[in-house]
């Protein structure tokens, strides 16, 4: 099989070819390693060496295992034993953890060797991958544009065919939004479905690992081997049913709810208009057109499109999120103090001043967005402000979860565009934090509610991919994957252009 033929296979197809003996795991690994080595998108922060240790054992043993040797790209913030795990930050420059994250270890055990570590926004804080200490990642559809973030390296690597599939994390949209901007599939599971052990924490009550893949079947296959209770993460849980590979061909009897608050209007000739409360969702016309066309296809497949469903508190989700996530981050990132690992500032700090060492280390090691969020979170948690910000944001979170519960009494899934815009130009939003935060408008509500959501590519606008988001109740992963699979087949999105 030629390298081009190998790269054209989806991960599930490649696994099948290896299992039947038509393809060797070693040839597959080397085909991707060669492409990843020639990466000019800045996707990787570390790459496996030829014949090096990949954590999955010998290639000849992989054939028998469920993932059959299909190599995996892993976001930098997952700890990998003896391999740099720097979370896109200078403060963790050169850090090699003594252990491997549960999600990664499970996939290695299932037969996925580690191909490389992928670039990301520093500590997963960002929506463009421009906040990385290792420089920005370029979007394979247009190299002047961002891949989205924070799992930008993982998304761009999969889209460009530098990795068959990848692991990312999603706190407020960090899997779904880059998947949308790169024209691939990204799934954020129910909070707790995947162990957080060994993930360098951003906001612990929201962080969740998930797959970034070329198609829905690959997402299901990767998820199947990541999930499960882990004694090392007390918030992890056992899913009530095993993850199955999707196979649904229609959407008969499926009710899809289109909330006006997250879709830019009522849908009745009001596309691009105002959402509930007269608040602008700020969704681009090209994105809305593709979204509406996808809904039309869903209806053709038998789905019932319900335009009356409402998430009245969704317009407040972003505000609640930008209190809760920075607050948790300011606490989580307190561990980076120059004592146990990572950077320690020496210049200027006298040997007698511990406090000065802490302050200088954090000054030197953190980038501007991380500093901004640490400051925001520290402020929100400080005496006199706690109830007004953190306490209120937690109550808004309750309201948002209640909104979804109410909606799911009427519909099976909520559908929205994944991101308000297509991939934007590098540098175009870096001077305006608020404009950057807007990228998370449609993805943050699901994060706050802890529910699963998937983004699938649903078309192009001016040659740039658009994502459709489907969200379901907690533990509805199988139904969500099935519905996404049926839609994916009908949409027939061709991502091969980005792999050229």
């Amino acid at each position, binding site marked *: 099989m030629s390298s081009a033929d190998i790269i054209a296979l989806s991960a599930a197809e490649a696994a099948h070819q290896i299992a039947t003996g038509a393809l060797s795991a070693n040839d597959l690994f080397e085909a991707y390693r060669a492409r990843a080595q020639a990466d000019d998108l800045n996707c990787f922060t570390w790459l496996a060496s030829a014949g090096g240790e990949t954590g999955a054992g010998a290639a000849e043993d992989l054939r028998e295992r469920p993932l059959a040797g299909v190599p995996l790209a892993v976001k930098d913030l997952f700890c990998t034993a003896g391999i740099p795990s720097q979370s896109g930050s200078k403060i963790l420059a050169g850090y090699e953890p003594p252990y491997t994250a549960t999600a990664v270890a499970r996939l290695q055990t299932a037969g996925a060797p580690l191909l490389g570590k992928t670039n990301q926004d520093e500590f997963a804080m960002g929506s463009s991958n421009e906040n990385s200490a290792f420089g920005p990642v370029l979007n394979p559809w247009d190299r002047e544009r961002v891949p989205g973030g924070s799992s930008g390296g993982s998304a761009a690597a999969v889209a460009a065919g530098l990795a068959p599939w990848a692991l990312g994390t999603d706190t407020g949209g960090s899997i779904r939004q880059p998947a949308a901007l790169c024209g691939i599939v990204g799934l954020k599971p129910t909070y707790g479905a995947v162990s957080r052990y060994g993930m360098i924490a951003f906001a612990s009550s929201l962080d969740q690992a998930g797959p970034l893949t070329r198609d829905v079947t690959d997402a299901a296959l990767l998820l199947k081997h990541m999930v499960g209770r882990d004694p090392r993460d007390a918030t992890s849980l056992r899913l009530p049913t095993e993850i199955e590979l999707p196979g649904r061909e229609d959407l008969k009897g499926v009710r899809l709810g289109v909330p006006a608050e997250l879709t830019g209007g009522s849908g009745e000739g009001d596309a691009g208009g105002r959402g509930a409360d007269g608040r602008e969702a700020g969704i681009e016309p090209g994105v809305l057109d593709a979204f509406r066309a996808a809904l039309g296809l869903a209806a053709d497949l038998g789905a019932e499109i319900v335009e009356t469903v409402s998430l009245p508190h969704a317009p407040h989700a*972003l505000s609640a999120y930008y209190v809760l996530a920075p607050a948790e981050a300011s606490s989580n990132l*307190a561990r980076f103090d120059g004592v146990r690992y990572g950077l320690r500032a020496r210049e200027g700090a006298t040997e007698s001043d511990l406090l000065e060492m802490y302050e200088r280390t954090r000054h030197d090691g953190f980038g501007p967005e991380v500093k901004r969020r640490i400051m925001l979170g520290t402020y929100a948690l400080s005496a006199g402000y706690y109830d007004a910000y953190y306490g209120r944001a937690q109550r808004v979170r309750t309201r948002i979860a209640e909104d979804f519960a109410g909606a799911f009494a009427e519909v099976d899934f909520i559908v929205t565009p994944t991101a308000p815009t297509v991939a934007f130009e590098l540098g175009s939003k870096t001077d305006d934090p608020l404009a950057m935060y807007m990228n998370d408008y449609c993805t943050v509500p699901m994060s706050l509610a802890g529910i699963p959501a998937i983004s699938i590519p649903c078309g192009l606008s001016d040659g740039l991919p658009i994502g459709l988001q489907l969200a379901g109740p907690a533990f509805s992963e199988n139904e969500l994957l099935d519905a996404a699979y049926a839609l994916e087949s009908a949409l027939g999105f061709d991502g091969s252009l980005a792999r050229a």
Partner: protein
Amino acid sequence: MSGWPRNDRCRGGPGTIGVAAALECPTMIDREQVLHVARLARLRLDEEEIEPLARELSAILDHVAHIGELDLDGVAPTSHVVEIEDALRADEPHECLPRAVALAQAPAVSPDGKGFAVPSPQA
């Protein structure tokens, strides 16, 4: 800025509901507050970082403050979204990280090789 619900409270807008005093706006974070919060966060700032941070934090907090408009009386806070049972493992001793491994990534190790070294006032 589109997409963010406008904070009309400070512009004489109607519907002001039970706003906590801390959310009275416009939210202005001044230089002294920035330096105070930076001290709490153990973060040294360069002189040129202070003014932009004051401006950006004010803008973000001003937008975030609209959650003060919502009537949230009697609403319980959510810190964890999915119900977990039996989260506790058996309280049995198990192997921990060997000391040498734990110290391997430390920027400085004490002369006896047994601990992390930090600048000490007694040094």
